[in-house]
């Protein structure tokens, strides 16, 4: 078997392990699915009248508008949970055992990220299903569904890279867990839950420059309207930027971890 195939098997095995870990522990699944679903229901029911505001983009319903925000919240928390799980592995010595195994170091991080990506994919299916069940239309049909799923999965992996970097750097699950509020701050300061033009300053100004706004617009675009290649390209670029940042931070953190043990 060639080296690439062996490494792919390692990544797959570690990815499956991280998925099983998440599904076995309800306390890990709760932030990824239950909280975003609860918030989606509450915000849709509580602030649904917002669609009547002047300047609100034409949408079929507020639920249709909010689906992208719920997916973003879920994938961000999946990335954070992946970081927590990696930090727990470090605390318990599991990562040290992997470091001594004859496998490339990057497969350890990639295995974790594969698990996070799978959770992102699951979250996208979950929220699209919820949307469809409760009457939201996917405006651009099957291509829109596929675009949303791909973007959510890729963003989960990208955000997971940053979570993994922090886990590798600190080796502490409680530090990574402490980032949970930051995830909410980043989301509130993006157009995840409301159109940027209708937000209040200074949140509006920050959201304009927040790369997560580009990602969420890319996911939302095909759900509420036709596919817009410009919007899609901006989302892909933003995700690529987050991936690059995650890779850079992970590589540096991995070197640090190997040095300090």
């Amino acid at each position, binding site marked *: 078997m060639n080296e690439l195939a062996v490494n792919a098997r390692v990544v797959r095995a570690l990815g499956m392990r991280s998925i099983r870990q998440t599904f076995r522990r309800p306390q890990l699944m709760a932030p990824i699915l239950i*909280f975003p679903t609860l918030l989606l229901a509450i915000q849709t029911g509580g602030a649904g009248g917002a669609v009547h*505001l002047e300047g609100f983009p034409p949408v079929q319903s507020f639920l249709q508008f909010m689906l992208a925000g719920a997916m973003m919240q879920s994938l961000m928390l999946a990335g954070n949970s992946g970081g927590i799980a990696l930090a727990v592995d470090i605390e318990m010595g599991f990562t040290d055992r992997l470091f001594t195994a004859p496998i490339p170091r990057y497969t350890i991080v990639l295995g974790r990220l594969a698990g996070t990506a799978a959770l992102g994919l699951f979250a996208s299916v979950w929220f699209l299903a919820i949307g469809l069940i409760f009457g939201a239309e996917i405006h651009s049909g099957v291509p829109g569904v596929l675009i949303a799923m791909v973007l959510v999965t890729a963003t989960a992996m990208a955000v997971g890279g940053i979570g993994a970097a922090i886990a590798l750097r600190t080796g502490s699950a409680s530090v990574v867990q402490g980032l949970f509020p930051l995830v909410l701050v980043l989301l509130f*300061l993006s157009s995840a*839950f409301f159109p940027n033009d209708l937000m209040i300053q200074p949140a509006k100004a920050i959201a304009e420059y927040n790369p997560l706004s580009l990602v969420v617009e890319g996911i939302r675009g095909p759900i509420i309207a036709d596919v817009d290649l410009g919007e899609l390209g901006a989302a892909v670029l933003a995700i690529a930027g987050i991936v690059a940042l995650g890779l850079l931070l992970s590589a540096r953190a991995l070197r640090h971890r190997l040095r300090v043990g």
Partner: protein
Amino acid sequence: MESAAQPPEWRTNLATIGALMARAKNELLRVPGAAIPGVLAPTIFFLGLNGVFGALTQLRGFTTGSYESFIVPVSMLQGAGFTGAAAGVNLARDIEQGWIDRLLVSPAPRWVLLAGNVLAASARALIPATFVLTIAFLLGASWPGVDGLLVTYFMVAAMAAVAACWGSALALRFKSQSAAPLMQAGMMALILTTTAYAPLALLQPWMKSVAEVNPVTQVIDAARQGFVTGVSWTETWPGLLALLALLAILGAWALREMRRTAA
């Protein structure tokens, strides 16, 4: 030789409740970082919701032009919900570590043990509430008046007691900190499926139906009145009644679980 007179039972019970509250206070003083999530979460929600949904006040039928004033009592109650749920998580930790077993073999009545945990949560909830309120005033929230402020703080403390009863009952039922998401999600759902985001008339039909039967809607309306209109007994008593009912039901459940644990 004559033995010293025993203090009356009520005084012993009060002393036990005081000791349990002091223990909770010591936890807070020794690990100040532990209070940060409880303070941070409602503050982030307040700032986030205000920045995101602030334009909702432009909708016809909205009862105030200041979303900060409208949402701040909700964030204060949310802080109370988080704090109460945290009391449940702490109790689950005490069960896991065997501390509760030791308390249960003491001659203290069960309700006293529960009251210590619940009242500590009520007192602790005033910290996030004050923090959020300060931020809200800095952002321009209306002054609710002394009576409005007192009503809001009373509602916050009582809501924390409700949340602590809920958290304690779950902790005693599951005997594990793994139940923490259920404690928090339950309180979040209870507080937010109300008139939290918008007045009743502007809610979506399904949410309106839920909010109309959710007793916490009355609590939120009572806590909010000073910030949006003015304090009146008509707006206050339904909130008090709702809290009393919630405390009676959830307190009885928590007590039942404690008796089951001791059996």
